[in-house]
């Protein structure tokens, strides 16, 4: 039985990774909750965000956290355009079509990335990449602490937007009652695209927070998307709080099972829990949608 001196850093590490998982899952669950589609292009779009941060840093010398001012808005615009221009049109409102469209998009994006960026794994160098912060006796890399805080701030902003703005109310209204929404003058195509854009902007934030302590390659999104799907199902499809708690939970489970079962088996713990939860609580840990 490993003692606390090993378990605490592992849990902290899991929480920081989990906060980023939560951010990725938040975007996915927002899109699912409103558009009722599972965005298979989520991982590929995260990868694009990571490359954006990578090139802004290596070519223009921008700090990844300065990229927060550029990448999330750009990803928002990309998401808006994708939904309004491609997914919404090509899907013809049929779920199975939309599923295939987002799957197709992810394949196209990943192959374009392979072509343009090559399959190399790349990292960036920042002055704080190897700085650490001491938390309850454990040393946590600075970028991971920033990522944890950033993910929560983003989640808070998103929650405020959904709760206190007309856009947020319109998004929630449209999720449940399209005809009523049309009758109060909500432009469904626009609001659907705004929702998709917001979900993708979350990926932009995640990319900026992630790269200082991670890497980018054309396939980097795949690992995240599988975990994000797990979180979304675990937290209850469409639930915000569920995505947050689910993300942290999965991060910790991954870290601890890595500790006890060995690094390469870390993810097995996640899927074992996933299957157990689905057997006993098919609607996820927190039950229903927001």
């Amino acid at each position, binding site marked *: 039985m490993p003692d606390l001196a090993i378990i605490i850093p592992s849990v902290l590490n899991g929480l920081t990774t989990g906060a980023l998982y939560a951010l990725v899952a938040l975007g996915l669950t927002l899109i699912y909750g409103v558009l009722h589609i599972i965005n298979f292009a989520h991982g590929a779009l995260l990868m694009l965000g990571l490359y954006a941060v990578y090139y802004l840093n290596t070519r223009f010398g921008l700090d990844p956290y300065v990229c927060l001012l550029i990448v999330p808005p750009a990803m928002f615009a990309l998401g808006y355009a994708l939904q309004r221009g491609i997914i919404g049109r090509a899907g013809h409102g049929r779920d199975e079509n939309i599923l295939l469209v987002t799957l197709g998009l992810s394949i196209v994006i990943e192959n374009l990335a392979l072509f343009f960026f090559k399959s190399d794994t790349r990292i960036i160098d920042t002055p704080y990449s190897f700085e650490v912060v001491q938390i309850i006796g454990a040393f946590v890399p600075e970028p991971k602490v920033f990522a944890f805080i950033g993910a929560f701030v983003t989640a808070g902003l998103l929650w405020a937007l959904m709760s206190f703005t*007309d856009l947020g*109310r*319109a998004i*929630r*209204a449209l*999720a*449940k*009652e399209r*005809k*009523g*929404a*049309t*009758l*109060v*003058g*909500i*432009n469904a195509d626009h609001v659907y695209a705004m929702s998709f854009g917001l979900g993708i902007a979350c990926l932009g934030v995640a990319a900026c927070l992630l790269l200082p302590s991670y890497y980018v390659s054309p396939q980097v999104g795949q690992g995240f998307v599988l975990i994000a799907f797990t979180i979304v199902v675990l937290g209850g499809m469409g639930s915000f709080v569920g995505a947050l708690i689910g993300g942290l939970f999965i991060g910790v489970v991954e870290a601890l099972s890595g500790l006890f079962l060995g690094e390469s088996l870390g993810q097995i713990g996640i899927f074992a829990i996933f299957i157990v939860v689905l057997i006993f609580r098919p609607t996820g840990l927190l039950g229903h949608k*927001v």
Partner: protein
Amino acid sequence: MSDTLLEISGLRGGYGAVEVLRGVDLDIASGEIVALLGSNGVGKTTLSSILTGLVSCWGGAIRFKGREIQKLSPRAIIDMGLIHVPEGRHIFPNLSVRENLELGSYRRGRANRAKNMEHVVSVFPRLSERFDQKAGTLSGGEQQMLAIGRGMMAEPELLILDEPSIGLSPLLVEEMFELITTLNGEGLTILLVEQNVLQSMEIANRAFVMENGAITLSGTSAELMDDPELQRSYLGLV
């Protein structure tokens, strides 16, 4: 007729290949309650939906405030002040009562949101008790009030109420019709779409009776009450 607000002439429309409305003529003057009556399936809701741009118009003209609107989008029609409280309410069940009302002014009336909300609550005091409750938890009558309140938030110049009494207990129906009279007394012009012929005629200035996609009878409520045709087919008097 003085000061015509809405004028519908030769209106045709339907779904797919099926024609539902076969040339409807109807007019509403400012300040009136006009009832559109008829049994189930004659095309009343189709007419309401074409008026607010939810269903496309095949032919004929709709003139609102002097302007042809049959080609406009629902949003452009809302902007002009023609507001539709639909059959079946279609409130937002996952939003609170307050949020439902707020979204009523999503497009129009936003500047006066707080003031209009106070007004809605003064007309429907039952809503204030449920203000922060999810709209889906309201009773049928409360949901209908919320739907009307949501419509009022857009500062309507013409309010279409499609079957506001459907599914309500007789006592609530009475209350609902009184509230509609109150709103009209404040100057709101109302198109009241109903199957409830007798009670509608009691509060309406004029009425149009629709059968099979066309208007078959029209006149002031007093005239229609005396019409032998109407007495026979709708009032069950012989």
